[in-house]
């Protein structure tokens, strides 16, 4: 059981590493947020759960922590993304489409 826990924690650590690598390599705020949220969710989830498997007495506590991370992580990344969108942080120059203008028109229609 201890070894299983160690393996799970190790996989989680690999995902955390990939997440930070993504933050270094990807070009703009939005893409970095993608890497930051995706890899960190599973990374933190597996790391805490692995500790729970290593020490069965802590299992339910670590599961609670993991669920809490799952519930709060997208909200924080959404807040960061929305803030950078509102303050007109530019997209990467090789971005394919940008529908932000259409969306702003939706907002005007909604407000009218």
């Amino acid at each position, binding site marked *: 059981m201890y070894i299983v826990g160690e393996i799970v924690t190790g996989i989680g650590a690999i*995902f955390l590493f*990939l997440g930070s*690598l*993504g933050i270094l*390599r*990807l*070009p*703009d705020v*939005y*893409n970095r*947020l*993608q*890497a930051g*949220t*995706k*890899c960190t*969710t*599973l990374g933190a989830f597996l790391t805490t759960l692995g500790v729970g498997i290593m020490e069965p*007495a802590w299992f*339910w*506590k670590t*599961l*609670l922590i993991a669920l809490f991370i799952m519930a709060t*992580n*997208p*909200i924080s*990344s*959404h807040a960061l*993304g*929305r803030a950078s*969108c509102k303050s007109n942080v530019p*997209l*990467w120059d*090789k*971005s*394919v*489409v*940008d*529908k*932000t203008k*259409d*969306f702003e028109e*939706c*907002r005007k229609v*909604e407000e009218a």
Partner: protein
Amino acid sequence: MQILVFLYCAQFDATLKLFFWELHMSNGRLRGFTYLFVLLMLIWLALTLSLDSQELAVGFFISILLALFLTKEYADLGFPPFTPARILYFIFYAFVLLWEIIKANFDVAYRVVHPKMPIKPGVVVIKTGLKSDIAKMLLANSITLTPGTFTLDIIGDRLLIHWINVKTDDIDQATRIIGEKFEKYLKVIFK
């Protein structure tokens, strides 16, 4: 002195009755209170991991107190009543979401470690058929957790999505690719 105590007790009794009456009469308040109490009690059990009577008593009182305070906030969230079918569907939805999260991680990890970085980022708009705010929130959070998509903003039934690998800029097709897989479960849960 005795009269004072009696008056005080009577007043306390009246406030208590009024409070519980309000809890009963206002639509769904008591239901929300029960859900919150059960949820808090479960969290307490998971944290203490003991069935000792003292621990249980403390947990019981703290849960009741917190549930009383949070009932109004819970009612404002607008969750529908929990039926067994809804709970089963929600558990199934949680597994679908977990599977999507695992796929999301491998997809983004692949794009990050690939030497050429095969990304095609862009911002698209999708539509949703969901009505209640809480359902839209769940959909937006689920989208944030799926392969390379994440929600920037919501207005009415439109969601602004940043997509790391844009496949189409058409609003209907994007909705089918990004939103459909979650929306079909959420529609059943929140109908």
